[in-house]
């Protein structure tokens, strides 16, 4: 348990670094929507969602209705529903409600990515370790972005911003090496995502919405064409 927690904290460091960079720019958006540093801090601490928060800040900036905030948040964060479904299968069936409620606090792309890629049953303490390092970075970065948008040199922000993507690669590439079908669908996802970002109509959708649509379509196609055979294969 202690070892898992420490490993979680270690893996939380690159996530936290990436979070600092990303939430910093999120803070700049929060500032222009009229949030104070404390409000930006609270929004990030309670949401832990990049695209979702960004979408929310545009709702605040527009002084739109509370209902619109509900809908916008639902759409922008719908992929977390998919991730939590996947994560529910990783929990031991007898895992307590408390663990489920706590892990649910911070199901982000990154925390999800490192949690799901661990072999075997989900150990919540690993996830807690990562959350403990990453979540404060996310909230503090946002507050910093609100107070001092141009504090860090642009080049440093630019370099830090790929930390997240590096981590994504470390999650998706090793299974691609082991399993050719995963490799093919990673490649398909790259191409489809590039196409969707550049095609007319599709490119007008937000990044979050494109992510949802592509994830559902490509994963469904993969599941229909190459169903996973048994427990063992699914755990690979």
């Amino acid at each position, binding site marked *: 348990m202690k070892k898992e927690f420490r490993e979680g904290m270690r893996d939380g460091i690159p996530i936290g670094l990436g979070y600092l960079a990303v939430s910093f720019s999120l803070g700049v958006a929060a500032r222009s929507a009229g949030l104070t540093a404390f409000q930006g801090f609270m929004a990030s601490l309670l949401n832990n969602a990049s695209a979702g928060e960004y979408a929310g800040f545009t709702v605040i900036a527009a002084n739109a209705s509370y209902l619109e905030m509900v809908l916008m948040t639902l759409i922008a964060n719908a992929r977390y529903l998919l991730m939590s479904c996947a994560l529910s299968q990783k929990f031991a069936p007898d895992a307590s409600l408390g663990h489920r409620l706590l892990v649910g606090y911070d199901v982000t792309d990154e925390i999800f990515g490192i949690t799901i890629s661990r072999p075997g049953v989900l150990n919540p303490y690993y996830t807690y370790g990562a959350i403990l390092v990453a979540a404060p970075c996310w909230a503090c970065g946002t507050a910093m972005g609100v107070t001092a948008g141009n504090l860090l040199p642009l080049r440093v922000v630019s370099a830090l911003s790929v930390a997240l993507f590096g981590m994504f690669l470390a999650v*998706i590439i090793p299974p691609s090496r082991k399993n050719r079908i995963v490799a093919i669908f990673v490649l398909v996802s790259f191409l489809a995502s590039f196409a969707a970002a550049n095609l007319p109509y599709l490119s007008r959708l937000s990044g979050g919405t494109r992510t949802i649509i592509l994830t559902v379509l490509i994963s469904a196609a993969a599941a229909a064409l190459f169903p996973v055979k048994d427990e063992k294969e699914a755990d690979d």
Partner: protein
Amino acid sequence: MTHDIYIYIGIMAAVTYVIRVLPLTLIRKQIKNRFLRSFLYYVPYVTLAVMTFPAILETTQSPLAGAAALIIGIIAAWCGAGLFPVSVICCVTVFVLELFL
């Protein structure tokens, strides 16, 4: 009418939390349906791949530095480097390249 920013934030937080926690608390058993299980198996890889590219080209000052980070990151991960090493390698790649680009 003017809306309260704290209520906005509260709504965002509540909706986001419900989205995350409902599947975790309601789905207690192993899903038996083969299609659904396969679907959930592929979801993480597909989502992360979709979010990585082409976004990595747009996040850096120079798209070329982002592309280099992508390729070098893939090679490093392929060779077995872990989360933190791959992240650092990508950051250093961008930082060094952008000194010149």
